């Protein structure tokens, strides 16, 4: 079969473009939402924060169905408009287009930006902003010249993750994109799984990975120009109520957008399950559901724990070896696993296991998931660790020359919010992952995410929505427990 460089270039440029625009949407919405989550005392902010888990743990299949259930040709929005305005045709048709892709991707991923930026914004020192205000700077100027600069590291960190998520996205792009459209990941999949042209698959995988690594390199430059390790980690800002007119207007607009393009599609999933007769009762009557639930909790907890351990260790290593963040290599290493396609990684794992004559089991799955998700833990932890002033390191090394007491008495307490947040994120990602369990083909083992896919693949869509709802609830509980442990109640 012939392959042309032009086709590869078209697929690659489309992949990069849709990922970039999706990232911009996630950034705009996420940054605005993080302002309210970090600085304002409101129920809206706490609610948004607890939803951070949802996009990570819900399989993309259900995300796509959620958008279809709400914005599809026969979705809730169109049916409402047709009946209210007595229309002949459904007026909203943006979903099956490029706009549909970037809206679904952007709103699916904005909680990642919101959570990462809000966590850091909450503990930014106020002295610099107050000094600027005293000198006559307007609020916008203070935000543009001080706050954004202080947040640049966490903005870059969350945006690169969103970009890479969208870069490797499969289901949403094919479902909502124009007929015949393709991404580089689809082409890798086709070459590796359908035509088994491994040479071509290898070439595509290299091109894909190099492109992703190039983006990662650009990110490292942006992050390097941002704020270095500084600021006072020991103080959390006081949150104030929403008082000014502009804050209220922006909050209303923001909430409307989030309601329309995030909450409505996502809640369409549990509503579909609730309004379809016996979907939950059928699900709960299946033996496989309970074993999947057990496997999910065990593997997700184990993967999350190991990821936090590795992420924290690597963050410490980077802090000791490169406190002034001069080493680009150290910043890039955690992003390499995310810059590799899961299809490619799956193939590499199968070949390694085969060479080592190892049969897949749950421990292998946990190990493989940890390999992929420890960078997420690292990103969460390092954004908190960066807020610890270097003088704290110096003081602690004077007071205690021994290494481990400093970790347990200084770094862990000061990073505890990052550690808990990292655990919750990694738990959600692991719980929602169906690709690795499938690729590794662990016998007699099933996770909830895989169970959901299997339900959807057997006509049982309402039950699949019910199972996805359970996944969402579990992850939200973990995030909520994490927030409670962190003591993020408004003061």
């Amino acid at each position, binding site marked *: *079969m012939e392959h042309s460089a032009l086709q590869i270039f078209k697929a690659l440029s489309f992949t990069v473009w849709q990922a970039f625009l999706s990232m911009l949407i996630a950034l705009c919405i996420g940054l605005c939402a993080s302002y309210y989550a970090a600085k304002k005392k409101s129920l809206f902010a706490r609610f948004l924060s607890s939803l951070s888990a949802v996009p990570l743990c819900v399989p993309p*299949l259900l995300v*796509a*169905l959620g958008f*279809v259930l709400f914005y*599809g*040709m*026969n*979705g809730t929005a169109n049916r409402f408009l047709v009946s209210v305005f007595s229309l002949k045709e459904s007026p909203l*048709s943006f979903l*099956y287009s490029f706009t549909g892709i970037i809206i679904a991707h952007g709103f699916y991923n904005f909680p990642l930006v919101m959570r990462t930026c809000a966590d850091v914004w909450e503990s930014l020192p106020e002295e610099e902003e107050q000094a600027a205000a005293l000198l006559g700077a307007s609020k916008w100027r203070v935000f543009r010249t001080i706050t954004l600069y202080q947040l640049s590291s966490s903005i870059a960190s969350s945006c690169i993750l969103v970009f890479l998520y969208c870069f490797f996205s*499969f*289901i949403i792009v*094919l*479902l909502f994109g*124009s*007929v*015949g*459209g393709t991404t580089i990941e*689809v082409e890798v*999949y086709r070459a*590796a*799984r*359908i*035509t*088994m042209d491994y040479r071509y698959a290898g070439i595509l995988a290299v091109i894909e990975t190099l492109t992703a690594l190039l983006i990662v390199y650009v990110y490292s430059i942006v992050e390097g120009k941002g704020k270095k390790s500084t600021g006072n980690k020991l103080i959390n800002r006081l949150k104030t109520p929403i008082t000014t007119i502009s804050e209220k207007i922006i909050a209303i607009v923001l909430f409307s957008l989030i309601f329309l393009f995030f909450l409505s599609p996502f809640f369409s999933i549990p509503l579909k399950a609730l309004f379809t007769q016996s979907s939950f009762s059928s699900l709960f009557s*299946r033996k*496989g559901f309970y074993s999947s639930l057990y496997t999910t909790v065990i593997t997700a907890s184990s993967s999350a724990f190991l990821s936090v351990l*590795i992420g924290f*260790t690597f963050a*410490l*290593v980077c802090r*000791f*070896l490169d406190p002034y963040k001069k080493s680009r290599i150290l910043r890039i290493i955690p992003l390499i696993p995310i810059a590799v396609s899961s299809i490619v990684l799956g*193939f590499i794992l*199968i*070949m390694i296991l*085969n*060479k*080592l*004559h*190892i*049969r897949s089991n749950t*421990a*292998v799955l946990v190990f493989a998931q940890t390999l992929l998700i420890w960078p997420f833990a690292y990103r969460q932890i390092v954004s908190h660790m960066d807020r610890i002033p270097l003088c704290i390191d110096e003081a602690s090394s004077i007071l205690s020359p021994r*290494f481990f007491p400093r970790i347990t008495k200084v770094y862990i307490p000061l990073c505890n919010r990052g550690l808990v947040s990292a655990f919750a994120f990694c738990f959600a990602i692991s719980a929602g992952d169906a690709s690795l369990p*499938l*690729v590794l*083909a*662990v*016998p007699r083992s099933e996770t909830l995410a895989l*169970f959901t*896919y299997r*339900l*959807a*693949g*057997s*006509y*049982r*869509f309402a039950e699949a929505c019910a199972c996805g709802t359970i996944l969402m609830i579990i992850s939200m509980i973990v995030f909520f427990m994490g927030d409670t442990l962190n003591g993020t109640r408004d003061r």
Partner: protein
Amino acid sequence: MKSLRTTIITVLLFSLAAVFFFSGCSRSSKASPERLKEVVVYTYDSFISEWGPGPALIEAFEKQSGYTLTFVSVGDGGQVLSHAVLEKDNPQADVLVGLDNQLVEEARKRGILTAYKPLHADTLIPEHLRLADDWLLTPYDWSNFALIYDTQSSVREPLSLEDLTKEEYAKKIILMDPRTSTPGLGFVSWTVSVFGDNYLDYWKRLKPNILTMAPGWDTGYGLFTSGEAPLVISYTTSPAYHVEYEDTLRYKALIFAEGHAYQIEGAGVVNNALNEKGAKAFMDFLISKEAQDLIPLLQWMYPVNSEVILPPSFDAAPKAGKNLSADPQKVLDASQKIMNMLSQ
């Protein structure tokens, strides 16, 4: 600083060692006594799910043969083949289940299967359902591809593939991407069989009427049952599910006079399988009446064993008048050309 670095490196090495030590990874041993009592079957997701035939087959086969049966899901049919190819030099499976008529020659070319004719295959399996003369693959179920029509929609029921190109069906058809889905490839095969070398012209006329080309059957059919479009590519046997579990005749499989492409799913013994004897026992079992009785209500496909009586819900599954097929390589090439054309 030196002792700090040493400490950090020691901790990291210790952690890695602990992970490997406690990982409990089992090494697959060649022809160990335990392994010879086990038959490992690679298959696709829906086969081994709780509502698929897997669990019932395990119970019946283990009782009958004394072997332990282990199903391992590796994705879809194409992934079963690709997984087996990757393990070719050190196969972990004894049997592959889920390779269809499109993949027979690819499986032969890759040399991953050993031909085996199960007991009584000549009498149990009709000739038109056999996948290979040398029994490299043994069929276990089949169905025709068909457009499924929502009878509650306002559009007229199409009568042929050509009918689908009419303006009244604009954005009313859900297909699957042939690059990632078997029914998607099945539809391509169907159009190649009917239109011959003019298949590309047909797809140009069809393009405006396609709402989406879903990456898999699950997303595509999910969109269809959510009411996104009144037509979706699936199997003639799909309506039987809705009759059995939803007690509705709403979804109708359309029969076109020009004939229908079909899919026959097969199973084969892996070349150099660790337990070849057990594999053959499983193959004999798979086409027996006891196993084939499970196919209709758990696979939602037709069994190959002519002795099986179909359940009443299968009255809703119409029979195609003519079975069509095209050369698998030509279909693969056609799918690439079609997707290139559609993307312009």
